[in-house]
């Protein structure tokens, strides 16, 4: 971005060479051709991981949760870490599609579709963990307040019940929002279909969209409303997830800073995941003309900002632990920094606070390899943030007599791998059957054909 006189010259959001026809052709290409070798490689890795995870999970259901590394003080471990991690991942999607939409950030158009898809799949993945980590998952439905003859009800004081509502609401709204946004594009895909079955499916999915002015009118209003509905959810979901910890009495969990801290962390990790995914998607589906370095740079900037927010939170936690004078709190933070799980704390600190600082440099911000590695490191760092919070508070709580250590087993790791497989399998299938870029929105911001009429665009 530069300023010339009174005019702001911005980098084009889409390669200016592209025509409207190019958009349709490029975006729909993965849908209409046999998958490429790159896609197959990714898909086999993803589904293979899913298979490993499922096999291990099946064995876990058969034998019991004992196969995990959990023990008496450490009742939650890798699984709840994964839950919070995946919910966090989901955040960037809603943020990009809803909040940036309300703020009229046009650069969102190229990435919002995939980011939303990521949200959906991440929330689905996250939703698995609270269920499978229960001792009796076949009764996990008891967490829903459904009418039953036994007149049993849920405990509305428990943050886990709040979680159920927060996550399911979030999932429902995100799904609707995503689907509504997809309708015009599905109609475009329908119109290009040659195969009858394919055409039928897309016809059903496009809900009779014909692109009439009235359709557009309703669409715009519905989308705006859903965007407005989703926006508070971005903040509420992770706030409520953070209540799982903040409402308890454990030192290191019982902290008022948690809601904003978790939201910032969620956006941070969400953007890191979007960057990771888009770097791959640009490559695999050849979308470099639409998802430009400008998009990536913007996301890196957000990561820089949120990274510093979480960094602030980390330091503030330490400060408050010292300042409050609470001996348990002090101990737990000293234990995080220098105790048996210090390695996890320092992974978190390095990846989340130090690594994003490289984005101060414009050249690095715009370098695909650097941002790819950085985004991966941030994902790892954010995973360890949750791990640190959960495990270090549990393993040494109030009575020193029950202190213990926690060693995750191959089941913990394998099922975590399986969750990545689950997520990526869905994501890759999505890339094959639905347009990964909101075609109609991209067209709206293209300068193509507008110049002649004198700078109608921006």
């Amino acid at each position, binding site marked *: 971005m530069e300023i010339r006189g009174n005019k702001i010259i911005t980098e084009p959001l889409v390669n200016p060479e592209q025509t409207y026809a190019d958009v349709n052709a490029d975006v729909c290409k993965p849908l209409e051709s046999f998958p490429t070798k790159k896609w197959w490689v990714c898909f086999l890795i993803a589904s293979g991981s899913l298979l490993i995870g499922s096999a291990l999970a099946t064995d876990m259901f058969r*034998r*019991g*949760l*004992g196969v*995990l*590394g*959990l*023990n*008496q*003080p*450490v*009742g*939650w471990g890798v699984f709840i870490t994964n839950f919070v991690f995946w919910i966090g991942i989901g955040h960037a999607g809603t943020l990009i599609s809803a909040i940036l939409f309300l703020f009229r950030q046009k650069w969102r158009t190229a990435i919002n579709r995939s980011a939303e898809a990521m949200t959906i799949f991440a929330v689905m993945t996250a939703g698995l963990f*609270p269920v499978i*980590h*229960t*001792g*009796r998952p076949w*009764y*996990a439905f*008891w*967490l829903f307040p459904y009418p039953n003859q036994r007149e*049993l*009800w*849920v*405990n509305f*004081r*428990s*943050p*886990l*019940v709040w979680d*159920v509502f927060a996550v399911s609401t979030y999932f429902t709204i995100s799904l609707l929002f995503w689907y509504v946004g997809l309708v015009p594009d599905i109609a475009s895909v329908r119109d290009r279909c040659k195969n009858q079955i394919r055409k039928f499916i897309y016809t059903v999915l496009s809900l009779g969209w014909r692109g009439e002015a009235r359709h557009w009118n309703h669409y715009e209003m519905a989308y705006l409303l859903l965007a407005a509905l989703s926006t508070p959810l971005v903040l509420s979901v992770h706030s409520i997830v953070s209540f*799982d910890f903040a*409402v*308890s*009495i*454990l030192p290191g969990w019982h902290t008022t800073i948690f809601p904003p801290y978790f939201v910032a962390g969620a956006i941070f990790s969400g953007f890191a995941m979007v960057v990771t995914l888009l770097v791959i998607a640009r490559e695999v589906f050849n979308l470099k003309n639409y998802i430009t370095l400008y998009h990536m740079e913007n996301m890196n900037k957000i990561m820089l900002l949120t990274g510093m927010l979480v960094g602030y939170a980390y330091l503030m936690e330490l400060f408050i632990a010292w300042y409050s004078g609470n*001996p*348990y709190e002090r*101990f737990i933070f000293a234990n995080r920094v220098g105790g048996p799980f210090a390695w996890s704390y320092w992974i978190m600190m390095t990846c989340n606070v130090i690594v994003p600082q490289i984005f101060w440099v414009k050249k690095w911000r715009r370098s695909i390899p650097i941002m790819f590695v950085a985004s991966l490191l941030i994902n790892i760092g954010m995973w360890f943030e949750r791990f640190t919070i959960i495990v270090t508070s*549990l393993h*040494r*709580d*109030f*009575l*020193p*007599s*029950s*202190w*213990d*250590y926690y060693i995750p087993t191959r089941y913990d790791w394998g099922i975590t791998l399986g969750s990545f497989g689950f997520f990526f399998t869905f994501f890759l299938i999505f890339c094959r059957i639905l347009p990964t870029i909101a075609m109609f929105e991209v067209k709206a911001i293209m300068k193509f054909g507008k110049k002649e009429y004198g700078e109608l665009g921006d």
Partner: protein
Amino acid sequence: MINKNYYWGSLDELHQTADDQESVGKEFPSPPQEQEVTEMERREFLKLMGAGFLLSAAVSCARPVEKIIPYVNKPEEITPGIANWYTSTCMECSAVCGLIVKTREGRPIKVEGNRDHPLSKGGLCARGQAGILNLYDPDRLKGPGRVNQGEMQEASWTDLDREIGQKLAQIAGSGGRVVLLTGALTSPTTKKLIDEFLHRFPNSRHVSFEAVVPEEIARGQELSYGQKIVPHYDFSKADFILSLGADFLGTWLSPVEFAKDFSRGRRAEKGKMSRLVCVESLLSLTGTNADSYLSVRAGDETKVALSLAHEILVVEQKSSWTENKEITSFLSPYSIEKVSQETGLEARKLKDLAHDLWQHRGKGVVLGGAIKGKNALSLQIAVNLLNSILDNEGKTVVATPSSNQAQSSYADLLHLHADLKNGNVSALLIYKTNPVYSLPADFDFSNLIQKVPLVVSFSDRLDETASLSHYACPANNPFESWDDANPVTGLFTLVQPTIQPLHNTRSFQDTLLAWKGDMRGWFNYLKNNWQATIYKGTQLFEAFWEETLQTGFYQQETIPSTARSFQPSSLQHISRVNGIKELLLTLYPSVAHYDGRSANNAWLMELPDPITKVTWDNYLSIAPQKAEEMNLKEGEVVSISTENYSLELPVLIQPRLHENSVTAAVGFGRLNVGSVGNKVGRNTYPFQSIKDGFLEWGGLPVQSLQKTGKHYRLAVTQGHHRIEGRPIIQETTFDEFQKNPESGAWHAQTLPTFWPRHEYKGYRWGMAIDLSACIGCNGCMVGCQSENNVPVVGKEQVLIGRDMHWLRIDRYYSGPEDNPEITYQPMLCQHCENAPCETVCPVIATVHNDEGLNEQIYNRCVGTRYCSNNCPYKVRRFNYYDFWRDEAYPLHVREPIDQLLNPDLTVRSRGVMEKCTFCMQRIRQAKDQAKDEGRSVKDGEILTACQQSCPTDAIVFGDLNDPESLVSKLKKSPRGYHVIEDLNTQPQVTYLRKVRNA
């Protein structure tokens, strides 16, 4: 030519035309047209439909019907759902405490202490309570048989009786020697029977041998006072106790009785608190409870005792014995200065100790020493001298009643050894003892036993000894047969059977009677003997018998003894040990395993050692200084060798241990005990040596102690030992307490709250635990486990940190590393008013009830484990596996363990949380009974399982809403506090501050 009888159907057939020839033997004149079927044939359809039916039927198949049939003729005394209690006697060690056995629907499921018993007074130790599990041990022999090379061939009792009878008759005829080798038997009737049985064999002998027998006490008494007895120690009269290595709270003589009496002398509220000083070479349970602790090299206890005598007699010239030149001259080399130089103890401390002893003369007791300790006889004589010059003799140490625990005689054993070597034994009958396992290596018993032509074992399993025998004649479990016991002179107790023998076993006594040709049966024999020799009263015997069965014991009138005079000549038997500089290995019987007889008991295996908190193993304890010197870390495996034996053991660093001592428990490393106990830990018995006619396992000189480079993980239930300055343990000293009962108190500020408090209209259950009284013996843990169907998880799971004990005893160290103070704290569900677990459970599986209990509803529990995370006391236990049903776990339910379970509460399934309920079922039962009788529950009517068995009465349970109840008085006691009060959880469990006698 056509036969007249030929019937024809058509003209064609008659004329046998070509057409006809073709159709002969065919069903249809023209072949049926095969239908063009494109879809499915009828047969195919039927096949699939059949399969479909079958599959759908298979899916809806019911489980096999298991019929239950009610009593047709209900036994009068059995009401389903109502427990019957029978008195009996504990046979887990020779202290023979009084028991009551709870039976439900005809099966014993729980044992508790008999409150009326004059010795144990209602207490029962961990081993005693775990005894019931031995009855249901699946690895017991199911019947008698012949044993060949350790293989069992089952046979009938009749065949064996005939076979063995013939062989015995042959031996009797040829004058061969029959030796009956038994454990320490205190049963007068069994002894009588044995005498009668052996009478037939001219050369026969009864030898008794047990690994832990206080023979040196009896010998010491014989030398000092001329009576070969084990005197009775009366702790209730003792204000000052000096223990020179005697673990009287853990394993020494009669720990339950002693703990009970000891704790009664230490109630700070009564303004009197006895003082306990321990001088030890291995850290015992008693040592951890000492008010002051001196650690010495093994064998130096004698010197300490003599130096004290020297100070009193020679330096201070106090006692009337000062005149006795024989004594004073003997004592001359034992001045405190010299002894302090030799032992490294501070002279000041010894002088103070001598002073204190003299101050408390007549009201103190001096105990020595560890059984089978180094130079044990010398120590006993020195102790006898001290007790005599302090006038304790006849007051706290009395000859009547005397204990019958020293039944064994090493002389007999050595004689037997010689006989075996010479091949002089024709038949060896072995009952209740396991010499192959528990004798020293150089005894070579396993080879010697094979020379004996007839070896019969009465063991309930093919243990190390029984597998080398020729015949296994398994005796009944004590819960299956009659027996009696005579723990101290004048006290006789009965063992009642509470169940028919589970297997085809027969009591040892019945077997002897059968071989003797006596057809009366053991019960009649026993009863007759009681009538003839034991009962001294005037009542009708039958009435007496009924009454004794109900009370469980019979006490004869005895004349209290007076002070006996010490014979100075016995001092000549004190041998002087000088200048031992090398490391000394001391073996000891552990609190949970004693001599290893119940090594197949999963409860005991999983019971953490009171001090080290190690389960499922023995190890080599080593002092921190020594470990540092040798650069040893916990869990490192070292190889230790003495003159007799060498072994590899993992290291455990034990603060307070003398730096020249290394210690290891006996009772582990069994090879043939069963699926639970086989190869758990290492057998240390072979280290024992025979010295001056004594078996000795204390202070064995270590020839080498080397690192092996191997590592081994010990399954510890508590890995951190300090309280980190948190308000968990509160303590004060007795002096401070007397000045200000609230000294040492710390209370959290009470903050205002918006929330209404729980209201309790009826009862409000609460508990008080006295940290001053608790000695950390772990009895309550087994009581709880037995009462509440608490599973056993096995070593691997303990290593991960998944032990399931609802009640645990936390042990904390405080103060300097080499001699820290030790505090025990029983920790169980605190039933908080503001329970952190209750608010976080999403499905309301844990709730507060209207009597103040925090309830866990198992069948509502989904298993999120949030409650456990949020519990600041970490007393909730999660079923990570199906520990009761999964075959991978030691106590999984199989025949006959299923009969052990308490039917009053469920066996929790996999995936649910469980925790202490304050013995909900007992509360329920008492409330029901009170309701039937139209009254409210009385104070003391409900005893929780932990409270019932506590030998020191440290636990009190009751109604906090009743201002007169003991528990509500204790709650208001100035000593009362809550653990981590600053969290405002407001527990129903009040801890009473520990008062130390500093």
